[in-house]
């Protein structure tokens, strides 16, 4: 599948480049035609593919669950309702286990994070070339150069997506810290621990790092795991261009890795949810 004229490096690079719409260095807005152009756009650019899949999967989540919520009965549940209830119960159990304060936001937040991230991670199991290939055909039909049509299907392999969510959680952490302990209390927590008030600079440095590291590690953990998984799928896909023997081997490898990857997909969605709950719980506590 590596194409007839491009090298392996180009193939991998192509797969790791987002479909980017942004402001070119010369000032006009448009799609980036290469990875380099996308980089040159700097901050004023948006990854169209990531956003399409992220919003689409979020909409799928909301659609599924709101449909279940509408037809929900307290009587004997059907199969679909059973599944939804299982997910909700699972999330609710985790929230109740880790979150001690009273807050109506946390449980729906956890459910959204868990299922949305799960759906985005699941996109990793779609064969790496399938959707990009279709996108290339469609792009070609609209007159674009197929080699310049970029389409990444797993939003969680885009650090923007994971950092976007982690940023939202970070804002909530700050908000609830200040709401629960007051501005002074929150500052005190940062400044007067663990060395007392004479060690304030050291305290601020330590506590500041530990505060910042929470959302950063949250985002990087998810991104790193999924990015690595995606990378391995791409490398396995390279084998398909190496003839029938390498191709067969690649098939088995892809199957094996996909089965193993299911674990990572669930685990990372779960970890993201649990850590969100724990961080928000910490924000509600007086001392930790």
């Amino acid at each position, binding site marked *: 599948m590596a194409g007839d004229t491009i090298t392996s490096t180009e193939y991998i690079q192509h797969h790791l480049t987002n479909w980017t719409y942004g402001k070119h260095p010369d000032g006009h807005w448009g799609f980036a035609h290469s990875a380099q152009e*996308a980089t040159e756009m700097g901050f004023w650019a948006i990854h169209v593919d990531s956003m399409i899949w992220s919003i689409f999967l979020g909409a799928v989540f909301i659609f599924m669950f709101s449909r279940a919520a509408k037809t*929900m009965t307290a009587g004997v549940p059907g199969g679909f309702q059973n599944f939804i209830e299982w997910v909700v119960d699972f999330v609710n159990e985790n929230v109740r286990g880790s979150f001690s304060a009273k807050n109506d936001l946390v449980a729906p937040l956890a459910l959204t994070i868990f299922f949305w991230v799960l759906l985005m991670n699941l996109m990793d199991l779609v064969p790496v070339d399938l959707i990009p290939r279709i996108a290339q055909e469609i792009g070609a039909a609209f007159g674009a150069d197929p080699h310049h049509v970029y389409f990444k299907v797993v939003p969680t392999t885009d650090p923007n997506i994971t950092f976007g969510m982690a940023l939202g959680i970070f804002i909530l952490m700050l908000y609830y810290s200040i709401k629960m302990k007051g501005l002074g209390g929150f500052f005190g927590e940062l400044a007067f621990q663990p060395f007392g008030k004479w060690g304030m600079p050291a305290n601020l440095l330590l506590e500041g790092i530990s505060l910042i590291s929470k959302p950063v590690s949250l985002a990087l953990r998810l991104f790193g795991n999924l990015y690595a998984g995606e990378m391995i799928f791409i490398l396995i896909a390279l084998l398909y261009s190496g003839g029938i023997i390498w191709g067969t081997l690649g098939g088995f490898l892809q199957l094996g890795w996909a089965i193993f990857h299911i674990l990572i997909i669930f685990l990372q969605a779960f970890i993201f949810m649990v850590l969100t709950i724990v961080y928000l719980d910490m924000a509600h506590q007086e001392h930790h």
Partner: protein
Amino acid sequence: MNINLTLFAQLIAFVVFVFFCMKFVWPPIMAALNERQKKIADGLAEAERGMQQQEIAEKNAEKQLSEAKQQASEILGQAQKRANEMVEDAKSVAIDEGNRIKEAAHAEVEKEVNRAKETLRTQVSAIAVAGAERILKKEINANSHQEILDDLAAQI
């Protein structure tokens, strides 16, 4: 792999989806789950109560049964006693009656005997007078010999 506007686009999408979930998804699902939980708890409590009631009813029935049995045996005993009494009564009545009849019969017999004696006596005196008339070939005045005749009759 550039950090750019996508970050904030995702942040906005995140907020929107969480808001939707909080407003329209979570509350109805939780409400239904809680309602079912309550239903099940109620049902279990109801079953528990039913079992208890059944137990009580069983105990009651057992008690009543044993009471009835006791009563029945009491009644049976009383009836037995009563029957014995009646038999005894009847026996004594019968004995009394028999004795009375026997006594009456005795008295009757005695009366008969006395009457027979009486008749015999009168007849004897008449026979004795007739016999003596024959012997003496002359009439005897019964009145003048009444004393002797009475004496004779009394000896019989």
